[in-house]
């Protein structure tokens, strides 16, 4: 028997996952409502096309619906897991359309400023604040470090491909990735302090 929506809404993500594993649509719907926007936004950031982002997001969530029991809480939050599934699907989509250049910039502000504001929940507002801080952290990275991270994470390129694209030794690319992540992590730690 599926749990009622109101009950599902009171459950934490980690409590919803066993219900999703038992094929409870109400629990799944709550998960989508909580994280579908972020997954779609990430997919759009990677594939650069609304129709494709929609397709990727649907595939990602269907994959989660069918494999919900595989979530391992020891390896991170449900949200991180869902977003990594969406990211992998989006990268697969890009690769299946070889030759299509991924978007490489972070500056979508102009587009968003034209969108009507929607009512924000406190949680969503906090997430957006965090996102803004992360954008700040990424923006504070030296261009050479943010570039390799963007190419890897949002472009789906391997370090050897990035080395070829940028004309750099592979060791340099990996070193810049590490320095970039360490700097972001350091800024996050400062923000929490």
């Amino acid at each position, binding site marked *: 028997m*599926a749990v009622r929506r*109101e009950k599902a*809404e009171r459950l934490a993500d980690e409590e919803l996952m066993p219900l999703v594993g038992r094929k409870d649509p109400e629990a799944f719907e709550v998960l989508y409502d909580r994280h579908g926007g*972020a997954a779609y936004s990430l997919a759009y950031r990677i594939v650069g096309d609304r129709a494709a982002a929609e397709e990727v997001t*649907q595939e990602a969530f269907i994959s989660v619906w069918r494999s919900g029991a595989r979530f391992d809480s020891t390896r991170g939050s449900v949200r991180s897991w869902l977003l990594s599934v969406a990211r992998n699907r989006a990268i697969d989509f890009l690769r299946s359309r070889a030759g299509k250049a991924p978007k490489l910039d972070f500056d979508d502000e102009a587009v968003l400023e034209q969108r009507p504001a929607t009512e924000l929940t406190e949680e969503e507002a906090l997430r957006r604040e*965090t996102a803004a801080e992360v954008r700040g952290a990424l923006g504070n990275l030296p261009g050479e470090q943010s570039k390799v991270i963007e190419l890897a994470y949002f472009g789906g390129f391997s370090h050897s491909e990035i080395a070829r694209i940028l004309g750099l030794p592979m060791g340099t690319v990996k*070193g810049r990735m*590490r320095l970039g992540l360490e700097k972001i992590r350091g800024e996050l730690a400062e923000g929490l302090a």
Partner: protein
Amino acid sequence: MSTDHNRWREDLAAYMLGALDHEEATEFERHLEGCERCREEMQWLQAAVHTLPESVERQEPPQQLRQSLMAEVRADARTQSEARPARAKRRRWLLKPAAGFAVLALLVAGAVGYEVGNDGSGDGDGGGSTIVRQAGGITVKMVSEGDGGKLHLSGVDELPPDKVLEAWVERDGKVEAVPALFVPDRHGQAETTIEDMTGVKTVMVTKEPSGGSETPTGEPIVTMSVPQ
């Protein structure tokens, strides 16, 4: 040991960003199993990687995506439900087509004028479908399946994005919500499954806020009485 760790340390960030080739990633994972320092560093850097997807500008997903996704999920859930072994006690709550109108006492409450019939798709032994046309141009088709049945609606007006259809059954004097919420497609067709029709006397459908309600909050757009 330290030199070995430093050699792998350069691969750590690339691995976390999914930028190692498959063979390199496999090799790194083997190292990771035996290197506590790498595992600790990975755990530390994990937060940085997890915030990357949060850094993208928010885009509002189309409502159609939610509807399409949930329609697929509910269809899949129904398939799973139908695959369960049938209960020993099978109750034929719908009418045998052969019985036709003689026992077809489906009533339409709150509807002004209606038509009743069946489309002859039943097998004459418990399966079957019944069609009821309701006021407002909605046609209801109920198809029996074991102890439960599928409720198809057609001619349903498009719903606002914050509304869904919710079915209700009246059993033993109490109204129960049918768990599977549903929405009409662009052709005005909508469908849900009622898993257990045992003892149900009335089936209703209302428009409810997204996520459904515990009790009906609006006038039914469909009301059907089921003969016992």
